[in-house]
């Protein structure tokens, strides 16, 4: 027998076990149609690892798992960011070369991205990531420090819709500010009240255009100190969340989610979960 750890026979046997009711706790109810696959990608090797990141990816995994909307692969490396076969040359592993049972971007329907700063991707990986959204129509949902990523890569700014430009407010960048919802019809914003005070590391964004991104929430400029030293915008326009398209794909970004506790806030959970469902074409 092939000494594989995971074989199709295991999968079949497991499926049978589930159908026979032998699974200990079948929490995930399969929805109609094939389950979507989300890659929760948080390569933090080259920047500050926010304490929130592990809790954020674990929370989104749970929301997908419990709802049955999607399965999640959590990765803090970038190996899967490719449409090409994944092989490895070194080592004593049983699976080398062409036999490697990889899951690359072709397997996934959307990415949840919570990376930071410069991430080590080859030019081919960068091209594949853009094509994943633009040509394949897959989803890209990004949180908080995602806006600090890939400053050296202009196309990433086009994909995401804007760039980080400091967190000017409060002690250590953390402050209360009033979030004003622009579009309650957007699925990610449906649970939000018109205005809500959020305690977070509120970002100032730059290099975005309201003609290219659909702002669904913004900061009430009267709720923040416009004279803070790092406030650079003169138009008082501080988006908190936007949706956009990039080619055929759907993109969502929000500044919210600096602290682990933020991800326990039902508003933030529902925002990112519904954004993922929208990016997966499970809602319109």
């Amino acid at each position, binding site marked *: *027998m092939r*000494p*594989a*750890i*995971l*074989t199709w*026979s*295991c999968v079949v*046997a*497991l499926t049978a*076990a589930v159908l026979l009711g032998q*699974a*200990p*706790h*079948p*929490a*995930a*109810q399969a*929805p109609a149609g094939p389950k979507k696959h989300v890659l929760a990608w948080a*390569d933090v*090797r*080259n*920047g*500050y690892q926010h304490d929130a*990141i*592990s*809790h954020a990816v*674990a*929370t989104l*995994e749970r929301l997908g*798992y*419990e*709802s*049955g*909307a999607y*399965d*999640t*692969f*959590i*990765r*803090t*490396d970038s190996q899967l960011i490719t449409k090409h076969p994944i092989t*490895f040359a*070194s*080592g*004593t*592993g*049983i*699976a080398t070369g062409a036999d*490697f*049972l*990889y*899951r690359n971007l072709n397997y996934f329907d959307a990415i949840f991205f919570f990376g930071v700063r410069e*991430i080590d991707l080859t030019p081919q990986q960068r091209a594949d990531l853009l094509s994943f959204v633009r040509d394949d129509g897959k989803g890209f949902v990004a949180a908080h420090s995602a806006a600090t990523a890939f400053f050296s890569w202009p196309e990433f700014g086009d994909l995401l819709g804007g760039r980080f430009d400091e967190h000017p407010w409060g002690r250590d960048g953390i402050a209360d500010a009033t979030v004003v919802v622009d579009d309650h019809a957007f699925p990610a914003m449906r649970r939000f009240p018109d205005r809500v005070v959020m305690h977070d590391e509120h970002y100032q964004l730059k290099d975005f255009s309201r003609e290219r991104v659909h702002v669904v929430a913004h900061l009430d400029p009267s709720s923040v100190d416009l004279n803070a030293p790092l406030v650079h915008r003169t138009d008082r326009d501080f988006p908190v969340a936007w949706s956009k398209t990039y080619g055929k794909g759907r993109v969502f970004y929000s500044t919210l989610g600096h602290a*682990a*506790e933020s991800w*326990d806030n*039902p508003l933030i959970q*529902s925002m990112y*979960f519904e954004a993922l469902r929208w990016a997966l074409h499970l809602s319109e």
Partner: protein
Amino acid sequence: MMRRVRFGTTVAAAALLVVMASAEQAAPGQGGRGGRAGGPPRVRTRKVVLAWADTRNGIAQHDSTSHALAVIERLGYESGVYDTYIRTDSNIVSSKPLMTTGQPASGGPSLANVDAIFFMGHRDVPLDAQQRAELAAFVHDEGKGFVAAHVALTAFEGWPEFGDLLGGRYDDHPWNTASGTVINDDPSFPATKHFPATFPFVDEFYQAKGFSRDAHVLLRLDVSKMPPNPQLRNTDFPLAWAKTYGKGRVFYSSFGHAPETWDNRNVAQMYFEAIKWALGLTDANVTPRAVR
């Protein structure tokens, strides 16, 4: 039809954690980082666990890996016992982590500031010689904890010291995923005391070889109840053990092949209690015993 997502803590999880949270975490304001317990901000008293699952080599990532990491994170978060860093790269497994450029990282988690590792990597995990030495010393010399699940038994085939640390090596799964009877060899150990004397279980049971004489077996498969299999080479078939490695505490269990296995409350409690024991929050006798 999709079920509605339950935002926030589920009733099931809350009930589980009422059972699992022990007295030392019960003080007011000592709940999870999520702040559900209320109270003022407090100094960092929780332990820090690195949930590490480098799956870049081997036969692709198990479907259970990410769910397992998320469950481990949640158990620590909601109980307030530990905070978790989830990592699937191995740069963090160093006292001085490097960026992908080779330059020193700008701080953040490292072996110098975590108290235990939950490990679910597999096969030939890419660590250089310095990282391997530091990982072994993390447990052996610094007395930190190491809790490993399922595929961890397949890891680091080319590194003999890792077999000594973990207490065994992977030697196939003769029945693939199958139903079996598990014998509880130590109902006094914190991670297995909630299991009955014997219980049915469905999993991909890993056969161990090179089994360490200094390991204290907690759970084993009743091989006499399994169908004959030519790949069965070890009639002593441990499925969970605890041991020491130098000053550090080590726990391994084969349980956890399928995502659903991690929803089994007994399995979740086993790993949670194993982590608490490895962190030194509970104590147990792990004197090795002769094979029965």
